[in-house]
């Protein structure tokens, strides 16, 4: 085995990591389905496409139809889009806020750190869903965008805590001291010296936030506080339960949405393990 060049080392190991590749391919399949799926069906998610009501999967309705004759495949692919949007924006916002608070607290230290840390700990104890619930209940019109924003606004605490700890250990390193002595500003030090040295860690945080946001959204949708003007995988499951899909045996209504969430979130977790092995040489031999 030729020793890979330093620059491509991560890529070299990434392409040889089965967990990472498997997780990534599954996500890619669902992402593609979310992107091209709506073009594959003539029905809109809430169209009463099938006048006969519920029908099992067939050539015409790939995933069957709901109790009202809506096309499950159409709902599914639009729901997948919502899922990816929530993961990307909600998880992204959670990561950014976590970075902001974690970097400031960890790098500045002192009183500011004490305050931010206490605040983080307080928000960490409050069950996220309870807060989302009360906000969503008072919102008259809920869209996927507002859902993303509120999920992001409540998801950051553990990320902030983890990033703070990492920053803490990096800030006393020689190269950071050197930068400080040469008069580089704090913002520059954070973004040019500290952040690049924990890039892999930040990526892992983002992936976990992505998965967490998807699960939060599914919970919120299922309890009846999902978007009022769109479809999502959580809403599909709620409609299925409320309209007696279990009793009527319309399994094609509730199996696909849950399966997709499990597959996407599970793949994210597996990818995380794979990435960890890529970035951490100690784990590679395992």
């Amino acid at each position, binding site marked *: 085995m030729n020793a890979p060049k330093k620059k491509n080392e991560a890529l070299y190991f990434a392409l040889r990591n089965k967990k990472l590749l498997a997780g990534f391919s599954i996500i890619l399949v669902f992402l593609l389905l979310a992107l091209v799926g709506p073009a594959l069906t003539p029905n809109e998610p809430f169209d009463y496409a099938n006048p006969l009501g519920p029908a099992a999967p067939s050539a015409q309705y790939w995933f069957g139809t709901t109790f009202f004759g809506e096309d499950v495949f159409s709902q599914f692919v639009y729901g997948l889009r919502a899922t990816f949007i929530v993961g990307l924006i909600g998880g992204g916002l959670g990561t950014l806020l976590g970075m902001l608070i974690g970097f400031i607290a960890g790098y500045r230290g002192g009183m500011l750190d004490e305050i931010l840390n206490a605040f983080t700990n307080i928000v960490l104890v409050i069950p996220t869903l309870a*807060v989302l619930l009360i906000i969503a209940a*008072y919102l008259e019109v809920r869209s996927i965008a507002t859902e993303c924003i509120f999920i992001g606004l409540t998801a950051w605490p553990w990320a902030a805590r983890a990033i703070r700890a990492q920053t803490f250990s990096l800030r006393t390193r020689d190269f950071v001291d050197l930068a400080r002595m040469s008069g580089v500003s704090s913002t520059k030090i954070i973004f040019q010296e500290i952040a690049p040295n924990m890039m892999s860690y930040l990526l892992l945080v983002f992936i976990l936030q992505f998965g967490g946001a998807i699960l939060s959204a599914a919970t919120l949708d299922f309890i009846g506080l999902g978007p009022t003007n769109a479809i999502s995988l959580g809403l599909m499951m709620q409609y299925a339960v409320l309209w007696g899909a279990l009793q009527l045996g319309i399994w094609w209504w509730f199996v696909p949405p*849950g*399966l997709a*969430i499990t597959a996407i979130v599970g793949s994210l*977790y597996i990818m995380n393990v794979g990435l960890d092995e890529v970035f951490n040489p100690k784990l590679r031999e395992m």
Partner: protein
Amino acid sequence: MRRYFGRKILIYLLTFFLAVTIDWLIPRFMPGNPVQNMLARVALHPEAAEALRSYFTKAFGLDVPLWQQYLNFWIALFHGDLGVSVYMFPTPVAEVLKRAVPYDLFLLIPSILLSWWAGNKFGAFAARSKWLDNTISPLSYILTATPYMWLGILLAWFFGIVLGWFPIAGAYSFSLRPSLTLAFIGSVFHHWFLPFASLFLVDFGGWAIGMRNMIIYELEADYSHYLAALGAPQKLIRKYAFNNAVLPQITGLALKLGVVVAGALVTEVVFSYPGIGYLLLAAIQNQDYFLIQGCFLFIIIGVLLANFLIDIAYVLVDPRTRRGMTGETA
């Protein structure tokens, strides 16, 4: 130890304060006028609407300054006054919640404790051999990625409808009245099993993964190698590693509590189990805002109390916190 608890209690009090403030703030400062909408949209008998209107003017006290409204909110809270439920008019919200809470505890406590215990055991077990690791770990990852309600739906459908082994609605058979008879207790457990199982399975996955990763780390630590070099039996080394790995798992339990409670809420919806989750769905569908706010407060209080219990457990398990040497930083 006093410092440790002092810090913890301060955090919890601040959290409670913040939660109540959110509870007060949101109805007043959300865009639009929720009070108006609530009164306009809620379809109920005129008697209830009138009571609601008078409650609103009193509770929201719109004619007094903001700071006084806030103060009144706290005073009402300490009198146990959470408003009147619209959905179950004229029962007070506190009363409605009090009836639901035992079901939540009955579902949550066994599922949390058993999944934590079993997850730790199996996670430690997985670290023993490649073969075990390759079976337990993937299964655990799948379980922990599963949305609670979906596993609940699948179990309800398969065991409740297809096989018909378990009922899938209510906390006990509708033909029975609560009593201390064998038939009634049997019925309670019969209805309890599936929601319990679905909560247990999802949580189990998370704990097993946590323990597996933690124990591998501990087995690679210097003290493990040192013990091995001294010729200590493998069993003893594993025992020490397990004891050390359990500590972060206890902290993890405190951190995951919110997620677990959320899981119980949706599971109750699936199984029409009359706990807070089921109430919450009804409250949302009936626009019963006081009930929603009451649920919010009850969930927060429950999670805070549980956190405190976990802190006590941590002190009992980890001697270092008792001697004030180190402590989990808040």
